[in-house]
């Protein structure tokens, strides 16, 4: 819910600055390792955006695949889960490099 409110805040600030009447579309980037449930975020965004400029706006969630740096392999490897195991060498020393994103990428306004 707080994330949805954070999204709405960013969206409203931008829309107001751009003197828009209405927000039609909100594009978010959520990493696969960010532990954010897209459906829950959708539900919460609909709830918090009621009676705001973003009421009824479509929410597009772009999923960013996870990858991490393996110290032992000295290489970037794909990660399915945070704190997952390296698919090449089987070690746990992975540092996530992508897939942790929680960003508002852009909005469509009119």
């Amino acid at each position: 819910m707080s994330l949805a409110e954070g999204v709405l805040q960013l969206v409203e600030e931008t829309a107001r600055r751009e003197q828009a009447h209405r927000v039609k579309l909100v594009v978010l980037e959520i990493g696969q390792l960010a532990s954010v449930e897209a459906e829950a975020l959708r539900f919460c965004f609909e709830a918090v955006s009621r009676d705001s400029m973003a009421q009824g706006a479509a929410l597009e969630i772009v999923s960013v695949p996870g990858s991490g740096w393996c110290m032992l392999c000295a290489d970037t490897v794909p990660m399915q889960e945070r704190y997952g195991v390296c698919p090449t060498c089987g070690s746990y020393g992975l540092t996530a490099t992508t897939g942790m994103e929680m960003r508002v990428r852009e909005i469509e306004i009119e």
Partner: protein
Amino acid sequence: MCTVCGCGAGETKIDGAHEHTHVHEDGTVHSHAHDHVHDGQHTHAHGDDHHHHEHRGAHDLDYGSGPAHAHVPGLSQARMVQIEQDILAKNNGYAMANRQHFDAHGIFALNLVSSPGSGKTTLLVKTIELLKGTVAINVVEGDQQTANDAERIRATGVQALQINTGKGCHLDGHMVGHAVQRLQPADESLFLIENVGNLVCPAAFDLGEHHKVAILSVTEGEDKQLKYPDMFAAADVMLLNKCDLLPYLEFDPDLAEANARRVNPHLTIIRVSASNGDGLRAWVRWIQSGLEAQCARRAASVDALKRRVAELERQLAEK
């Protein structure tokens, strides 16, 4: 130049008037010039006398009034605006301000996180009893409802502020900023924040603390760190609490530690029992060394500033 397609408008001009060609309904094609009087009506000055016509606009059609200030057939005035900002940016800003305040005053701040019922408040009470008299302590208690925890802390004699989050499941940087204003913690003191009992959301919300301390009790599962990895990854210390109950449980503390290190290889783990006091000395020593480091950092920055002022004064005196 046109902002929609990049075409060079107004290139064709005949005595200040545009010339254009158009086809009438009967198929005759002709070319004519017309003046620019775009006030809703415009009149063509035709060279021949057939089809004398006039356009009178009943309504103004203004295609430049939308936010795009231009019109492209088939597209609405809607436009995309890049934001590219982190959803948590606002909270992180508040947290940063809190951390700067803590650092400027040599205050050591800890954020205690765990699931409900792990013994956070009891542990805090015991910790305060051991540290009381050596350092000034302020406590912020986060709970959905009631001021019970703050009252338990106040019973030890230290200042405590209860924050009720209502429907909220975590404290945020803004709330803690207000708490700092209210409590006005002394310089070089200890600032303890007991977060809402929840292993999920508090991990993402920075409060400006120096360390998150995760508390896991042995009455929970050994694999909680794997089920809720974010919290244990965000923490710098894990206290394994209620260790006095180990003889009665099938809990493997070594496995619990191994699982925690799987998620966070740099985690400091201390086994404690808030009820019989085991391990609390080690925990208190860890806090004290953190406090000393924080005070030393502040002294270093204050000393550095003093040296800089002395140096500048010397330079001024020489001139």
